[in-house]
């Protein structure tokens, strides 16, 4: 199994699953919101599109939903490339 990478570095279209969401600082509300939106261990994610300027923001497919995340937000999520068990 490959070590986890950040969601912000995941190439477009590559399937992956969420490892965990890291707090950028203590009591990080953005990290908490990401978890509430479904970025939890084992959840499949995929980068669907990237913004026209500097590839920011990125569009993430998670569950049945698409979320636009800025790179700084996506960098809080670590993902692994294996398929969920």
């Amino acid at each position, binding site marked *: 199994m490959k070590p986890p990478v950040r969601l912000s570095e995941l190439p477009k279209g590559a399937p992956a699953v969420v490892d965990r969401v890291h707090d*950028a600082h203590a009591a990080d*509300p*953005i990290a*908490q*919101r*990401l*978890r*509430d*939106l*479904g970025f*939890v261990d084992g*959840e499949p994610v995929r980068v*669907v*599109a*990237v*913004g*026209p*300027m*500097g590839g*920011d*923001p990125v*569009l993430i*497919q998670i*569950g*049945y*939903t*698409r*979320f*636009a*995340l*800025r790179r*700084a*937000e996506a960098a809080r999520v670590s993902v692994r490339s294996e398929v969920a068990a």
Partner: protein
Amino acid sequence: MSASTLRIALVGNPNCGKTALFNQLTGGRQKVANYAGVTVERKEGRFTAPSGRVLQILDLPGTYSFEANSPDEQITRDVCAGNYPGEAAPDLIICVADATNLRLHLRFVLEVKRLGRPVVLALNMMDTARQRGIVIDVPELQRRLGLPVVETIAVKRGGAKALIERVDGEVPTAAPAQPDDAASRADLHAQVRDILAATVAMPRATAELDDALDRWALHPVFGLLILAVVMFVVFQAVYSIGKPMTDAIGDGFGWMGVHVATLLPAGPLQSLVTDGLFGGLGTVLGFLPEILVLFLFILTLEESGYLPRAAFLLDRLMLSVGLTGRSFIPLLSSFACAIPGIMGTRSIQDPRDRLATILIAPLMTCSARLPVYALLIGAFIPIRHVFGVFNLQGIVLFSLYLAGILGAMAVGWVMKRIRGDKSEHALLMELPSYRMPKLRDVAIGLYERGGIFLKRLTGVILGLTVLMWFLSTFPSAPEGATLPAIDYSFAGYIGRGLQYIFAPIGFNWQISLALIPAFAARETAVAALATVYLVGGEAAGGLGHALAGQISLASALSLLVWFAYAPQCMSTLAVIRRETNSWRNVAISFSYMFGMAYAASFIVYQVARMLT
């Protein structure tokens, strides 16, 4: 509470079709206000159930989680929990979930259930779910959730029938309240997965149509092209539908004023009626067509799901000047008129981003500046070709638009540097499925926006217009006066006083005086200049000639730049007051724009004087 009234709170994730359901239940019988002290909209409606019981429904702001991140989410949480001051706890909560997006929405349903209040789950958009081949075992879902579940189609007539029947019946018993801590929150996701595995069969995670449309709409090149075309169409419509109606309303009230005036004796009362009252009404109501046309497009784009796509494409650009992708549409609307632009910032949830957008919006070159630009450019800028193809007059006009945009970017950048709160504010924006906008929902939205404008602003703007009329009319000219009447008025005195302030930027007292009525509405500066230069009644060409003879080129350029940045008009300031609920923000807007206009005009005047 009377025994027959049932208080219902409507909650759900953003994009669950909650507002469409609310419209379906209550029709036009809605009251829109603000929660006290904040600028979050409070929408309430009522309807009478078949049993004769009156149902009072509160449409709470869409929320992903009770771990609230913004003022509107806090309100939803507090009202549901019965903790919001001045708001009675709901007797029943209707939780709305999109049947095509249950992975996300069921988690919130479980959060609502843990409050320990009676809850009914409305499984909305069942029509779309069926089309997409999604199969939901409703009885099993109901059993596992321990909540009554009804299917709804908010956008179809009669689509809420089952919900009304259920709500009209016995109030379901509440599940026991459960504590809210980190461990149990994490556990909610596991519960959702179990429930989904047992009750929902989903052939595809996304709608094929969404995938196909987004391939174009979000494409780095075609996406931006599509956005440009959409915006072009919106602006064409504003100018070709809204503008003529605005002009017609202004002319109509002018005509009515003149005719009513014939019934009155000449004198101050007649002048008050024609110039103050009817002129003012013409100005205020004249805003309405442009506002409605703009909002027709904004609401349609919002309902269709395209707006978040536009925000996605432009977020990086807007972020670099301290804004967010969501600021784009309000700012763009401000090119027609800052008033709908500022009202449109309600779609920005984050208070800091919203305020930044509101403060910048008046710098966009609105349509009311055009008559002033046209007059001054026509009078002072020669028609000359530059590089063989470009017209110098056109280049100046373009530069003024550009000056507004660059000025706004600079202000945004400076605000980002100087504000105390440097914390990271997230984008975290859901891109919902594309949907065909429904006429009823757009119509109700338009009716509300128009109502807000008329109810909350007409009084203020009309009052200020009459005040401006008073200043320009009294005291009246003495017998045998040779100068125009406005010279003897308070405005005349103020203008003469202001010239000392404005002399360094090249304004004589006549221009300073014209700036006073321009504060009511920019385009009146032309009429005011015409009055003081004794060419009233003549065509604008005549005024242009008069100006060219009396004002230097440097002064004219300085005045153009002044109009690009100056704190005008007062209607805009009134909207800022209404939308931010704060005089402080009005003071900030006024002073920064005044300072910016003064500095820019000073530089232009002094440089131009040296060169000419």
